[in-house]
Each structure stands twice: as structure tokens, then as C-alpha cells.
């Protein structure tokens, strides 16, 4: 199987280039893209990428595979056209090869104060939450912060510092909708400006690429509905 992989090592290369590789899949078993690039790394140890769980829950190995953001460990080679073109996530600074700088992505996440706030002293046991209230968090809490969505979002490309991006917006919604959180008003007030969530233009690339099948566009719409409910 043929691969074309984006290479850039700032210590050696003046500019990035695409390198061709080939793997004989009849000799070495590789099912997923991650299996393949691990085998390529065994041949060429300078090839660099992030990886950890290999089962799609840690979010390390997000990359652009044949033009589409995805996790290498759950993208099956059999679904891909040759040569398989691997590039780093678009719209983010490249550190080396397939590794991008996610600092800004994490900063946007932190801006949403992604932790439960409750001003009441906790009870001796658990805070009660009905299954219906808990169900509102489904589709929100499962985010693995891989960055596929934000890096596929044109609005995030143009305003990465001001627009939260789909991943962070999803987390904002996760806490706004949690029945145990009582900072809803503060959270909403932080989001009513023209950028934080309103820069979402419903392009829905985020929904298209999310490896966990989540829907950040809907999460943003939920915040907007809450703001409208409160603000008119």
C-alpha cells in the first residue's frame, strides 16, 4: 500500500515536503492507519506522530487522512484510496511531521471554565440528578479533545483566538445544561459576544468529522436558544 506523508523537521528542513512510503500489507498485518504508520516508524524512526490508546478514546492521533480529519487508530485502511495522504491537522501550527501545536485549542477550552460550579455546600451523599437531566449531557461529555472538529472549522481558522471553536463550545454547553451547575448565568454572559459562539456559521464540518459522532453545531444552537430565552 502506498502512502504519502507530510514531513517537516524544523531543525533540518527549510520547508515541509511530502514523502512516499510503501508497505507490503500481505507480510505485516495492519488494519488501521495507526498500525501502518507504526510499521513505517519501525522502518524510519524519524517519522513523528502522537499516539496513545489506539482505540479512539484518548484523542492523540488526530490527523488529516486523504483530506479528511480523523483518528488514525480507528480509520480502517480498507476504506482508503491510494496513495493514502497523511497531513497534520489543518489550520494549526505544525511542530513536526504530523504533530501540531494544540496550545490555542486548549486555551479556548479553558476559557469556558470547563468544570462544575456549584455555590451550595455539597450534601453528604451524591447530588441527585434525574435520568432525564443526565440525558442532556449525552452527546456532550464524550468529547475526547482530539481537535478534529476545530481544525476543520473555517470560522476557527479565521478567528482561532476569539471564536471558541466547536470543541470548546461543546464543553460550554455540557456545563450550561448540567442540572448540578449553578453558574449558568455567568457562563451565558461570557458567550453573548459576537465571536465566542456567534462566529459559528453552521458549516457543520465539525459534525462531519467528529470521530465520536457528536454534534457541536447543535450544542452551539442550544446555547443560542438559552441566550434568546434569557435575553428577550
Amino acid at each position, binding site marked *: 500500500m502506498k502512502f504519502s506523508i507530510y514531513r517537516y523537521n524544523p531543525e533540518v528542513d527549510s520547508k515541509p515536503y511530502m514523502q512516499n512510503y510503501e508497505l507490503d500489507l500481505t507480510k505485516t498485518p495492519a488494519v488501521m492507519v495507526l498500525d501502518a504508520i507504526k510499521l513505517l516508524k519501525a522502518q524510519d524512526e524519524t517519522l513523528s506522530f502522537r499516539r496513545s490508546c489506539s482505540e479512539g478514546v*484518548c484523542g492523540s492521533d488526530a490527523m488529516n487522512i486523504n483530506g479528511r480529519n480523523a483518528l488514525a487508530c480507528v480509520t480502517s485502511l480498507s476504506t482508503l484510496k491510494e496513495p493514502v495522504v497523511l497531513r497534520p491537522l489543518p489550520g494549526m501550527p505544525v511542530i513536526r511531521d504530523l504533530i501540531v501545536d494544540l496550545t490555542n485549542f486548549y486555551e479556548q477550552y479553558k476559557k469556558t471554565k470547563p468544570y462544575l460550579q456549584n455555590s451550595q455546600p455539597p450534601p453528604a451523599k451524591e447530588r441527585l440528578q434525574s435520568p432525564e437531566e443526565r440525558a442532556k449531557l449525552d452527546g456532550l461529555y464524550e468529547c475526547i479533545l482530539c481537535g478534529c472538529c476545530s481544525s476543520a472549522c473555517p470560522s476557527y481558522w479565521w478567528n482561532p483566538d476569539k471564536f471558541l471553536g466547536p470543541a470548546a463550545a461543546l464543553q460550554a454547553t455540557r456545563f450550561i445544561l448540567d442540572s448540578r451547575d449553578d453558574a449558568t448565568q455567568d457562563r451565558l454572559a461570557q458567550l453573548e459576544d459576537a465571536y465566542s459562539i456567534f462566529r459559528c456559521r453552521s458549516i457543520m464540518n465539525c459534525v462531519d468529522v467528529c470521530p465520536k459522532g457528536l454534534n457541536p453545531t447543535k450544542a452551539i444552537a442550544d446555547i443560542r436558544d438559552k441566550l434568546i430565552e434569557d435575553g428577550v
Partner: protein
Amino acid sequence: MLLPTQSFDAVIIGAGGAGMRASLQLAQNGLRVALVSKVFPTRSHTVSAQGGITAALGNVDEDNWHWHMFDTVKGSDYLGDQDCIEYMCQMGPEVVYELEHMGLPFSRLDNGKIYQRPFGGQSKNYGTGGQATRTSAAADRTGHALLHTLYQKNIEAKTTIFSEWYALNLVKDREGRIAGVIVLSIETGETLFLRGNAVILATGGAGRIFQTTSNALINTGDGIGMVLRAGFPVQDMEMWQFHPTGIAGAGMLITEGTRGEGGYLLNNQNERFMERYAPHAKDLASRDVVSRAILVEIREGRGCGPNGDHVLLKIDHLDPKIIESRLPGIRTLSMTFANVDPEKEPIPVVPTCHYMMGGIPTNKFGQVLTMTSSSQEIPVPGLYAVGECACVSVHGANRLGGNSLLDLVVFGRAAGLHVAEELNQKRSQSIVPEEEIDKALTQLNRWNNTNKKGERVADIRLELQKAMQLDFGVFRTGKVMQEGIEKLKLLRERLQHASLTDTSHVFNTARIEALELDNLMAVAIATAISAEARKESRGAHSREDFKDRDDVHWLKHTVYFPDDKISYRPVNMKPLTVEPFPPHVRTY
């Protein structure tokens, strides 16, 4: 060599569940905490934990922590230290409520309380009252929910996080106290000395010593390697849990929760074979019991598939609504890695290496223990270990499902509390001799200056994993293990001459893999030597040449020292407040 230095009250290595629970405890106390992690915190392996966290909340059925303690002692095949098990089980409900207050999105019962499911090895009334329902869960993503919640709370508490920094080695001060750790920035290649009045190791497991494992690629036993290189021993390294239900051919885990929700195992006769091995608990017997049963079925020709090399996990009789609400993650995993929709067909499964019961010996405060020449146990000043890398020992020879997440938070918290208390006694900063720093850097310097014509790291790693898989798997025999030890010692020698062709600084993952292989090698050899030495079968350590448990000679912890020497220490059979549980024949 003079290194740039930063000082903190405490330095924590590893940002999984245990490390982040410890850092949170300290940061909330207003202490300055450095949390070092070779991956961004939410990429730590805790994220993969599926089924849940066990604690006697009694939300579904009558329960109390004494029963949980009994089950854990029995599950450990009596190798667990009963004082520590008592502490963990007693603290269980409190730490789970704390997690709930932090925002962990537990699944809920109709009355609004935390949802709990039955798990393997759980019983009511000291094994006489039938199956208990004790494991709290957030669908089948409990570890993910827990890890993200702890990371989020650490953001709030303003913990200083060194993300994508790799911890190289411990540094001692002039008095021999642990004074900090040398860390390497993966992104830039710079090294830094992180000083701390306490160092807490929370580096997780090392399942990557085996070829087939549910463990993440980052689980390379870095803490074990660091402790051994610093001259301290590790304990019970022969005890490796093989989880019964890894996806055949891939190794990814299918949670025990699938059986807790009503799933069961079938052989090629369509027989629910666990009924023969564990008439009462059946598919919810302890993991070591189920794993052995599966392998016996396969060995005796009752395996499924064209090669008869796996068994089937059936859940297609469950209500699809239950699968979609309680087990959505495993459904996706089976469809991705086994091409099977569990709502329609059974999942092909086979035991896979899952958890390291052994590790760095500690007491119930997380303080690392070492042994003097006169076999006296003493804490290593300034050094703590928590989570999977530690051996408290609460899991003994076999861990119960749902007890690992509990272990992380109970002892992460306990270590945090103990460090905070110790720091109240003001201590002036001690002197670290330059030679100590140099010594801690020798490993890195060796890899930076290798002969370019040596063997490749990847090749040696693969041979190591194959040797471990073949010679130290579920069933072990003396002769095979002795051969295995020889292979490993040769590999250890070859590793000294291996080479690194990439010596760049920026995100040199080849160098990180080389450093990790040093740790894998240390873990593998400790495992091999400890396993060969234990001449009995207990829990996960199952010998064909010594099939029975031998409490007269072997009711003791193996202690392995860095010079390949073995020693032993007694199991603590004296709980703090309750009556001890003496060893009994273990049936399910």
C-alpha cells in the same frame, strides 16, 4: 552539570486518575504543584477504563464496605494487605461522592442516585448472599468521565501542568532524600530539574511488555524503571492480570460490565461454559478464573472461529436500549475492531494483558517502601507512588473489576493528604550534589550518543514482547520461564548496544521510545524473575508445575531488587478495625 531548575512543593509524575487526584488534593490546599505528563493529561490511560468504580454505596441493593473488603481480599487470593484493603473499601463511598460533587457525569437511577451495576467477584454478606451490585458507572466510559473531570478540576485549582514532558530519573539530595526529578521537554528537547519536597510517581501500568494488551502504547512502566534505577525494589511483579474479554486479534477491551448487564460467554458447542467453572458466580467470577477457563476451553478444542482461537461474548439477547444507553462505547469498539454489531451477533473475545497488580511497594499513605539490609521496611523519604504503578497492595494476586479506579482516587487523595501534612513541617531546601544530577542524566546521554550501527529499538522491543507473551502468559512453567529469563537477559545486554539514528531535539518520539524501552526491559525482567521464583499458583500467577496455592510457604510478597535479587515480605493480615480474613479455598 548545571540544569535550569524550578522548585515546587510537590512534583507529580503522571497525569492519569491517580496523579491528578493527588495534584488536585495538593493544589486545593494552596500548595504549588507541578504535574508532569508525557501526554496531554486527558490522553492518559485512565481514559480507557470502561466499566466503573466500585464502592459500597448501596444504591441498588443492600451493601456495606465490609462485604466489599471481603470480596477484595478473596479476589486478591489473600495476597492483598488487609489494612490497606480495609482503608480503600471504607473510603470508597466518600471518594465516589467527591467525584460526583466534582461533576463526574455518572449514569443515574430513576431516584436520581448514582447508577450501579454488578461486576465480577462481588458478593453480599461475605460471599453468602449472592451477587452484589457495587460498581458505579458513567455508561461504559467511566474512566473517560473520571479523567476529564479531574483534569477540569485541576484547571480550576490552577495546578501547573508540564504537558508533554517526559520524566527521566529521580534525583537524591545529600542525605539520600528524593529531592526532585529530571524532566525532558518532548517538544523542544530541553532538560529541566524539577525540585520538590515530595515526588509522587503516578506513571501507570506497563502492559506493553506483552505483545497483546489492552494497554495504551504509553504504558511502559516509566515509574518502575525510575525506582529501580534509583536503587529501590519493586513488589509482586509476577502478578499480571489478563482480562478475559479482549477483542480477538486486536486486544481492545470489552468491559466486564457487558457481563454485569447480562452478557455471557459461549464456546463452539454454544455452551455457557462458565457454569462448569464457577457454578455460582458463572460469568461474573473473578477475572483470573474466567481468563483461565477461556484458555482451557480453547486448548481443549472448544474455541470458536476457523482457528478455534477465541470464544464468544453474547449480549444480543439484551434490550438494544440497554446496549445503547449502558454500553454504547463497546458497541462502537466491536463494530470498529471486530466488524461485529453486538446487538446482532456475539463478539469474538480472548484474554488480553490488562493490569499490573505489582509495582512500587507503598504503605496506605502512598509512601514508597524499601527494605534495609536487615529486612526492615522503611519509607523512602520524599517519595510516593500511587495508582497502577504502586503496589499498596490492595489487589494482591488478582484485582477485582472496578477496584482500579477506586485505587486511583483513594490513594491519589491519601498521598495528597499525607504530603500536605508533611509539608506543614517546614524544611529548608537541601543540597543536591552535582554528581546526582549527572547520574540522573546518564541514561539520556547514552541514547544521545549511540553507535549508529547498533540494533534498532523497535526490533528489540518486539522480541521482548514476544518473549513475555510466550513464556510469561496466563499459564506458566518453570522450565519455559527459565528459558525466558535467559532470553530477556540477552535482550537486556543487546539493548545496551542498540542505537538511535534520530538525534534531533524537536518532538523526537524515537528517543522517547528508546527511553521507554529501558523501562519496559526493567519491568519485564522483574516480572520474569519474580514469576520464576514463586513456586505456587495464586491469583493471576498460574503455574502448571505448581498448580495449587501454598499458604504455608508463599503467603508473602515478592520483593525484586535492581540487582536481580529476590526477597520477600509478609502480607499484612491485620486490618485496622475489623477482624482479619484468614485464607480460604477460593471458589466462585
